[in-house]
């Protein structure tokens, strides 16, 4: 596995959120999804900083939406998971699965 394909924890969670949201999603929707599912109150800045990093790696793509009045006339930045991102997620999941295999008996002692 290439070194660049290893995901950080927030990268992993954000990519999973994008898969769950199934389609184009903006930062606040991603933040809300993570908060609802994990209870982690992360900042919108952290979400965008991670999305920017994922975009640089080619795991997600983004485009600008239309400005709307409820956003103070500001446009949305919509994100979509790419095939490379899905592949990185699978590799990451496989890595975690192989590392946690046969560990169930030991959880109590860790």
């Amino acid at each position: 596995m290439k070194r660049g394909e290893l995901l950080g924890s927030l990268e992993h969670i954000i990519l999973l959120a994008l898969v769950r949201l199934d389609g184009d999603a903006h930062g606040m929707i991603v933040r809300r999804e993570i908060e609802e599912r994990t209870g982690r109150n992360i900042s919108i800045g952290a979400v965008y900083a991670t999305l920017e990093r994922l975009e640089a790696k080619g795991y997600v793509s983004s485009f600008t939406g239309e400005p709307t009045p409820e956003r103070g006339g500001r446009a949305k930045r919509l994100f979509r998971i790419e095939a490379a991102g899905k592949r990185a997620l699978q590799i990451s999941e496989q890595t975690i699965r192989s590392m946690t295999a046969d560990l169930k008996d030991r959880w109590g002692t860790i």
Partner: protein
Amino acid sequence: MKTCSPPTFACWLLESVLPDPYREAILGDLIEEYTLRIESTSRFTASRWFWSQTCRSVPSMVWSSLRSGNCFMTVSIAMGVYILMGTLKFAADLMISKVVSPDQATRVILAPIVFLTTTAIGGCVAARIRRGATIFLALFVTITVAILIDLKVCSIPVPWWYQFGFLTLGPLAVIITPALFGRLKQRGPVT
């Protein structure tokens, strides 16, 4: 729907500090969520949430901007504007001492006006070239003023609050003035 506007200073701060590619998106997202939160909770709770998001988002985005390699260019722009500001202030001080009045008391009165005007102009120029440069420019101004205070450059004894004013209002003028002008510019065509 209730009419509401998010905390003004938090918006100014975000507009001044956030890097270009995601500034509009982050501000838009926060305003949208703020409106929804006002509907479901109170204005106070929504404002507290907005401030908490602002304070936690700024370091993430600034750090991300530094990591992405834009840092060198941003610092160079800030340094260029800083030199320009210094030249402008030197010229203004020279003009005051030669043309207006050589009296030291008058210079003590005029110094804060010249200082705040040059820092405000510097902030606007830096923001015009690159938004993130205002943060570094404010940092340079703070360091310069702190060094000058420590070196006791002022020959006339001045009260502590006079020096403290330079230390706080200078960096604030660098950050707030461009945001203020940007806001006025945005309001212009709407009315």
